[in-house]
Structures are given as C-alpha cells and as structure tokens.
C-alpha cells in the first residue's frame, strides 16, 4: 500500500459513525418527533383506550387536521430517509459488521453485568449483545410502523397489505403499539446517551477513528 494512502487514512480514517449515518440519524430523530407528536394529536380525535389521552402540550398541531398535515408531511421524511438508511446499511455491510452475530450467551452476560451496574462503556465502537438486539429490533419496528401506517392510510388501495393486519382497527392498534415501542426505545436511548455523553458527541462529530472491519 503506498505510504501516502496510509497517511491519509490515519488522518481522514473511517469514523465510528460516518457522515451519512450521522446525517440520517438526526433527520430521523427530528422526523420521528414530528410523527410521534402529530400521531398523538390524531389519536386524541378518537382514542383507542378510554383511559389514555395525550395532553395537548405534547401534541403537534392546533386541531386534528393540523396533526394530520404534520403526519403526512413527516411520513415522507421518515420513509425516504429510512429507505436510504437501510440500503446504506446493507450495501456497505455496516449492519452485518456492527449488529451481527448476536450471541445468546453474550446477551445473558450483558444483562447480568447491566443488572449489577458493572457494564463497561470504554469501547464505543463495539456494540454489546443487548445493543445489537435493540438496534435490530427497532429497525424491524420501524418497518412494521410504516407498513401498518400504509394500511391505515390506504386500506382499499393497499388492501392486499392491509389484510396482513387483519382489519382496520387491528392495523391501528399495531401502529399504536409500534409507536409505544419507539417511544420506549427513545427514552432508554436518550437516557443512555446522556449517561455516556461520549456516545452523544460521537453521533455529532463522528467519534473515534476505527479499523475498517469495525466501521
């Protein structure tokens, strides 16, 4: 390998979070907040659970129609950004390198360490088994929330897809449960990022330079 190349690689070497990942992460973060808060506004117009109504202060839009306008604006960002992210992750091999394999033994060990507050965070570049499982899981939830959303939006035009969710109200329920999973993920994700601020900084600046097989 020519010396010049090696030199440039150490200076501009692969970061833990390459620029495209960081850009897509923050676009998704903003769009998800729009989707969640406008979704709560829409939910309030006809609640699924009589005991649950979201306070107006945490919803987006003045009336239901504004919530709907936000939701059908945000959907384009979430879906297009999400598709590019999935293609990027699969095409560059990032998903394969960072998220697999997930070993059951490591999963149990990580949960034990976490319960005993002995979990180590010294290496940001390697995800532990719980992280891998949660990141893969939330991507699957992301796919289901879009599919159930499409089934609610177009139960006739996309009737073949809508059939997968049984009927209109069950599709609504699935969409709601996916939102719940995303919000729970968000709470844990943000809490952990604040506990280990280096991880938050890394998602802004790119984080440590990593070897290619770890990028």
């Amino acid at each position, binding site marked *: 390998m020519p010396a010049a190349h090696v030199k440039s690689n150490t200076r501009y070497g692969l970061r833990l979070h390459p620029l495209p990942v960081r850009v897509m992460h923050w676009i998704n973060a*903003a769009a998800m*907040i*729009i989707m969640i*808060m406008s979704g709560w506004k*829409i*939910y309030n*117009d*006809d609640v*699924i659970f009589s005991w649950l109504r979201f306070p107006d*202060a*945490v919803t*987006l*839009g*003045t*009336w*239901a*129609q*504004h919530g*709907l*306008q*936000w939701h*059908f*604006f945000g959907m*384009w960002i979430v879906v297009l950004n999400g598709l590019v992210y999935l293609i990027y992750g699969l095409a560059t091999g990032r998903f394969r390198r960072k998220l697999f394999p997930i070993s059951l033994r490591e999963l149990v060990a990580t949960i034990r360490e976490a319960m005993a507050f002995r979990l180590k965070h010294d290496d940001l570049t390697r995800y532990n088994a719980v992280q891998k499982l949660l990141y893969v899981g939330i991507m699957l939830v992301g796919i289901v929330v879009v599919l159930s959303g499409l089934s609610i*939006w*177009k*139960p*006739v*035009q996309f*009737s073949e897809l809508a059939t997968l969710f049984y009927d*209109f*109200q069950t599709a*609504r329920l699935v969409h709601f449960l996916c939102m719940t999973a995303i919000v729970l993920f968000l709470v844990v994700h943000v809490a952990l990022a604040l506990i280990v601020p280096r991880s938050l900084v890394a998602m802004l600046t790119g984080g440590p330079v990593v070897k290619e097989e770890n990028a």
Partner: protein
Amino acid sequence: MAVRSPSPSIFRPKQAIDQSALEENKALIEGINRRNVLRGAVSLGALSMLTGCDVSDDSAVRSMLLAVSAWNDRVQEFIFRPNHLAPTFSEAQVLKPPRFNAYYPLESVRPVDAATWKLELSGRIADKRPWCAQQFDELPQQELIVRHICVEGWDYIGQWSGVNFGTFLQRVGADLSAKYVAFKCADDYTESIDMPTALHAQTILATRYAREPITDPFGFPLRLRTATKLGFKNPKWITAIEVTNTFTPTYWSSRGFNWFSGI
C-alpha cells in the same frame, strides 16, 4: 462589489452585463447567507421539540404543510386503482343503525321533506332537469356492504343501496372527462370528488340503508356513498350536483383536511 471590465473576446457580448437587477436586489441578496438559512432550519427543528409551542401557527409552516397536502392529493390520484374493488362484507356484520357524524350534533339535524325535495344539476351536464326522489327508485339498484372509515379513526360496516353514480352521470349526459363532481347539501355542507372516484364501481347515490329508506340523520332522501374515500367525502342530504373543471374549496378541505382523502 467591483465589476471587472471584461477582456475582449468573441465569446463575450460587446457591452458589459447589465447589473441593474443586482443593484435593485442588493439588500435581499445580502440578507441571504448560510448562517441565516441554517438558523431557520435549526430553529424549526428546535421549536417542534419544545412542548406546548405550536409551530403550526407560523404562516410559513402552515403554507408548507398545505403545499405538502396538495402534493399528497396528487400522489393519491396516482395510486388510485380505478378497477380495484374495496373489500365487501356479509349482511351479518352490518351496524344498525349506522354511526352518526356531521359538523354539528345529532340534535341539530334538520330533516328534508322528500315531497318538495329536488336534486339540481349544473355545470358540464347535458340534461339539467332537476330530479325528484321517486326517479331514483326507477333506476337499477345497486347494494354495497363496505367499511365506512372516519378521518377521526373509527369505522363500521354499512349496507347501502341506490343508483350507481357512473350510471347516473351517463344518464344525465355529464362530461365524464371533467375533473370534479361537486355537491351542495341541505345543511350547507359542500363536498367534491375527482371524476375517477365518481366513476368507480363502488360509488353510488344511496337512498337506502339495510334495505330501508335512509333515516334523517344519515342523509334522507339522497346521499353519496363511495367505498374509496373517508367518511366526510360522502355528502348527505344532497340538493345539487355540479360537474366541473374548476376546483372550489369544500367544507372540510377549506378547514385543513386533505381534499382527496382516499382510502
């Protein structure tokens, strides 16, 4: 900014380029800089995260959202499948009576007298003679057992029968290449739909529910029932139908709900 005098070349005009437009808009151009654009972009994101702060009130945000809603109308026109039928259901699943909804409560419904009721026809229609209630019984009847979905989120299975809307439009000599069919109602409600939806096999002018004449709260004597749109796109107590190429705002679309509202 100093303008360099151009060196002579056959590729350049003999006269210098007219700078007056730049001079006139100097203040505007100087106002555009990366920092302000970034500040605008960041503050929108930050505002949406502040709970209780309603960015929908900002007029720029409002017009952006309406532009996206208009774009979504076009997308829905594009994905509409004219020959694709909505799922149908069995008579046992029908809700009786159907669920009421309007822009006012049930108690405020003003019944329509069928004896004096007329359906006015206007716009791109050859035979504009008004129709009376009995005329709809004389045409072939079609029944639909389909899901009614409200924009609010609730739904029920309804059993509607009446005259196929495409058949009706053909019979009165409507211009089937026109863009819109607009409705006026006895309660001053207004609605309009696109022509492909009007001509869909599951779009009818309904006169009956569960084989009985439609009762007052649900649109007696005549209402629209289309299987491919949300509930509010199905006007009740129709008094006038216009076939037109001109879009006019409708009751709910002028209040911010998406116009096409297909399902």
